[in-house]
């Protein structure tokens, strides 16, 4: 199965900073980031920084809300936002990991917005986990070599 993704492009008369603010400002994001006006978004969590998490509840006319969450992977004002996206159970698409890439570029007096929402492949997931492990191993190595370690640790090393 090749890459699966959804994609939208749109031009706005507003300046790039204004479009970026729609993604970065919790008060603004709640006013538009839903599929239609009758589906309300309530923000459960919104930590807009690299490594920060967000968690949104979408209130459908009927039934339980759909909860979506993820982590911000990359943020560059005013041109780029990248974050993961996973729907929580119960949902037919629960647990499917994906990544949203928002690109905001100046276009004359206005702004060109490009949103690409791609499913993460197994290779992506493995690479992510590997990144996490490398980071953890680096930290562990630093810890083991640090001067302030309790004596018991050092004995085990030798």
């Amino acid at each position, binding site marked *: 199965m090749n890459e699966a993704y959804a994609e939208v492009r749109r031009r*706005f008369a507003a300046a790039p900073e204004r479009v970026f603010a729609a993604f970065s400002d919790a008060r*603004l994001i709640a006013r*538009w980031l839903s599929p*239609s006006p009758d589906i309300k978004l309530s923000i459960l969590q919104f930590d807009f920084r690299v490594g920060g998490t967000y968690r949104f509840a979408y209130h459908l006319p009927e039934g339980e809300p759909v909860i979506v969450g993820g982590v911000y992977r990359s943020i560059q004002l005013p041109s780029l936002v990248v974050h993961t996206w996973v729907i929580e159970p119960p949902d037919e698409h629960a647990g499917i990991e994906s990544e949203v890439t928002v690109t905001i570029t100046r276009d004359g007096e206005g702004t060109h*917005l490009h*949103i690409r929402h791609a499913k993460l492949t197994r290779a992506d997931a493995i690479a992510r986990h590997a990144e996490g492990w490398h980071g953890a191993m680096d930290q562990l190595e630093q810890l083991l070599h640090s001067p302030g370690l309790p004596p018991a640790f050092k004995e085990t090393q030798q």
Partner: protein
Amino acid sequence: MIHALAQGNARSAGELGRHFNSAQPTISKHLKVLEQAGLVERCIEGRVHRFRLKRKPLQDAGGWIARHQAFWTGAVAQLDRLLSEETRDE
């Protein structure tokens, strides 16, 4: 195993074992993993458990894309309205 399950009707672990020349406990273990992953469903007929492929999850990529395409299309339309309102208020 998924290919074998897709070929015909629901099969029991024993039948699948003979097909793959593998011991039943091994087959049962694999079927349990596939069942937990939501790819295979179990039908119990008396003492025999038969297994059948759940077609929907494997064909579902289209469903995920369509759903998220509709999400972003709708959201960007709302964003357009919001940004237009903001401009008007200034």
